[in-house]
């Protein structure tokens, strides 16, 4: 048959060019809107902080206690980052290259701690070891809770390492260690730095673990000042200090990454898989996994279960059901809002890097270190002026989106960057304008990665507490607030059922997250033929 009906869509030069600029203008103005929203908490902090006389601000910043807290926070971040990076990379590398039975199960067990809020994690360890407290305990807990970030990020990088390169290295007589350092590690540095970034920012913003373990970090100081309520201005000054520290961390992390600019691949064909089957490796790995499962999964689950069983009070299943639904629904909408907000940012970041896109990225990341209480109060201040959305689930969902936007942006820009340039160009020559390309080529290719990021936001939002307490509709209970209200009066037994249900619900998205290989299949992985 003949295709005679090719529509003559060729318009005049001018109108078409204008449309190209419209695309750019729309993306940029949306980026601007999102950045403005992200800056609400920082704007609030500045507004508050500068209600204090400058002399007092200086005095507050330079008192010995502040220095001490900054030092503690920095040491905590360095320790947790170093430990998670070291262990996470090794575990991921082992998981990727060593032939193991039950690989998928191991991966799930390694990632499941993501489902446990740090405060529940800490409660359970304190319940087991009453003297569990202090800096090292905090390092331990934060290490266990953030390890999955590095494992997942490294695995994503490792899947892109071409097995043939390793075979080439082998042929040159390199041993496994040399191959790891010379071939594998340099290629996954970008991914590692992404994981480490999440770990560092999480550590900075964590309140649950450090406050329970009596470690005075910046977030604890900030929360104390808010609890002491009448000095919101001092708290704002310290919060800005935290913002500064996180900016420093973000820039350091960027340096680490920029030394190794990943070659942006335009290939749509994939890489070859390389596996090692050596007994010593297998045994070592399985023992590491077993220890991790014991301390990071078995202990919390065991403690929660015993508390649950020993709980003398009748369990209020209705309240558990209501809280579960509330938790899931608000977290879901938070994740969706984060997804929507991250689209323009992701589009900007996936294109050629400019100075503006770098700044945009930093702003988003720095916001990620803000503790929930700061974002919560900022939205109380702004939201209460807009009566109709104040204390609605919408504002709470929006707070989640702001708190965890960086996660969603990271996966958005990462997934968009993965879309082969060639595929976009071909689509353009086949008659698709930028929007159509976005819809028909970019979205389907990037969707699995974006869904993963959205899942991560969903998971994190379900565990969120401080902002939830402040912004939830009056009388609205999530699993996290229920855990809090029982634990606040030391009734851990009564908190246990809620914590268990949270763990079970959170395990579902964790399960999805721990199977990115599925998702990846659709993207690029392919074994080289012949």
């Amino acid at each position, binding site marked *: 048959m003949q295709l005679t009906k090719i529509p003559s869509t060729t318009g005049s030069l001018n109108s078409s060019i204008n449309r190209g600029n419209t695309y750019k203008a729309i993306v940029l103005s949306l980026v601007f809107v999102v950045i403005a929203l992200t800056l609400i908490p920082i704007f609030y902090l500045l507004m508050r902080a500068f209600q204090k006389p400058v002399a007092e601000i200086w005095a507050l910043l330079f008192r010995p206690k502040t220095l001490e807290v900054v030092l503690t926070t920095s040491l905590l971040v360095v320790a947790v980052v170093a430990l998670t990076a070291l262990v996470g990379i090794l575990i991921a590398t082992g998981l990727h290259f060593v032939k193991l039975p039950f690989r998928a199960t191991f991966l799930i067990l390694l990632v499941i701690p993501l489902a446990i809020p740090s405060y529940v994690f800490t409660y359970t360890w304190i319940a087991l070891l009453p003297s569990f407290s202090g800096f090292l305990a905090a390092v331990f807990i934060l290490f266990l809770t953030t390890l999955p970030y590095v494992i997942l990020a490294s695995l994503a990088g490792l899947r892109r390492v071409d097995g043939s390169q390793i075979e080439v290295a082998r042929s040159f007589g390199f041993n496994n260690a040399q191959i790891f350092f010379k071939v594998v590690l340099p290629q996954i540095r970008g991914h590692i730095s992404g994981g480490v970034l999440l770990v560092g920012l999480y550590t900075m913003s964590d309140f649950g673990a450090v406050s329970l373990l009596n470690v005075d970090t910046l977030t604890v100081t900030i929360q104390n000042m808010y609890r002491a309520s009448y000095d919101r201005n001092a708290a704002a000054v310290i919060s800005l200090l935290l913002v500064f520290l996180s900016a420093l961390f973000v820039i350091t992390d960027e340096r680490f990454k920029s030394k190794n600019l990943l070659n942006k691949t335009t290939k*749509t*064909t994939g890489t070859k898989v390389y596996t090692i089957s050596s007994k010593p490796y297998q045994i070592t790995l399985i023992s590491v996994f077993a220890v991790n499962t014991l301390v990071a999964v078995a202990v919390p689950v065991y403690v929660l279960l015993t508390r649950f069983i020993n709980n003398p009070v009748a369990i209020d299943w209705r309240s558990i059901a209501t809280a579960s639904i509330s938790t899931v629904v608000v977290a879901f909408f938070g994740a969706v809002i984060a997804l929507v907000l991250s689209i323009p940012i992701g589009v900007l970041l996936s294109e050629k890097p400019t100075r503006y896109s770098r700044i945009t990225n930093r702003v988003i990341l720095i916001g990620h270190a803000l503790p929930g209480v700061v974002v919560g109060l900022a939205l109380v201040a702004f939201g209460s002026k807009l009566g109709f959305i104040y204390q609605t689930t919408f504002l709470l969902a929006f707070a989640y989106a702001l708190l965890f936007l960086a996660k969603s942006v990271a996966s958005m820009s990462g997934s968009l960057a993965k879309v082969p340039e*060639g595929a976009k160009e071909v689509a353009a020559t*086949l008659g698709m304008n930028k929007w159509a390309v976005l819809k028909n080529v970019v979205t389907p290719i990037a969707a699995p990665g974006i869904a993963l990021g959205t899942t991560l936001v969903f998971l994190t939002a379900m565990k969120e507490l401080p902002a939830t307490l402040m912004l939830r509709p009056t009388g609205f209970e999530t699993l996290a607030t229920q855990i809090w209200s029982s634990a606040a009066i030391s009734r851990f037994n009564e908190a246990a059922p809620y914590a268990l249900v949270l763990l079970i619900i959170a395990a579902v998205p964790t399960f999805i997250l721990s199977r990115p290989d599925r998702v990846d299949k659709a993207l690029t992985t392919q074994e080289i033929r012949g």
Partner: protein
Amino acid sequence: MTTLEIKNLDVSFGEKKILDNLSFNLDSGQIAALLGPSGCGKTTLLRSIAGLIQPDAGTIRFGKQLVSLSSLSLPAHKRKIGYVPQEGALFPHLNIAQNIAFGIDRSAFTKEQIKQVVKEMLTLIDLVGLDKRMPNELSGGQQTRVALARALAVKPAMILLDEPFSALDAQLRAELRTDVIKLLRTQKTTAILVTHDREEALVSSDVVALMRDGKIMQQGSPEQVYSSPTSATTAMSTGDTLVLSAKRLVNGQTNYLFNPINLDANILEIGEVVIRPEEIKISKDLSSAKIIGEITKIDYYGHDAMVEIAVSNESVQVRIPGPAKYATGEKVALEHLGPIRFFANSKS
């Protein structure tokens, strides 16, 4: 009828000028090969035609329609161009049938019609039955075919192929190239093929454009560009070339290795003579030989052989039909069958 007309095109990336005042024409139904070393700007030219790059100056016309005028340009999706990039760039998330149907306007054709086109295309590229496969389940050659089918499915006014065969091994490459050219010819598609392979350019095209440093140095039929190069450089870009220093005399004769006439006549200009290896005849009969050399090396290819012969101080390459009857170290008589292509050194 001229389908493509490019005039005074300039493209720069930052300080670097990639296309420099380039002009080029192509008639409807013709296949053109853009031949040049990597970095000469051929891909940039192709992308400018496709609308993927916005030129800084110059015009591009498709037929009568202006698609690019200095910095204004019609976006790629309105040009109705078929584009086959390196390695195909199939959509990894779509199966083969979906890839082929990708560009077809869904509002203008029914599902059945589209299905029909996909079927025709699959037949055309000889991949019937693979319509449900994913791109990563195909071999490199099959991927290239699909990429071509995807471009052809929309009946483009012109098809642009950017080194589509470069990732394939030699034999597959030759086969696929033959198939593709045949296919393009039966479809009467105007096409531009970017390549750095001399043989590929000559074999596939009606028009060869030799590119270097952002300019087209020579354009013509394959025979023309091969037999009548406009300089030693263009000669070298289309095939093996022997370049010998030469002097043109006032009496019209040329003094060079194969014509060592005396230089009594006044020298008009100094330059080079460009000879193809197959234009020299060698024989074992040294009796009436004017020029004699000694074989230093024989590269045997089966259908022919390349023989390297030391003559005076020069090393001369001669292509002889196989099987070779010569041995290294043997003395042979040489004779240049012509033509004598003399290029005077540029006066600087």
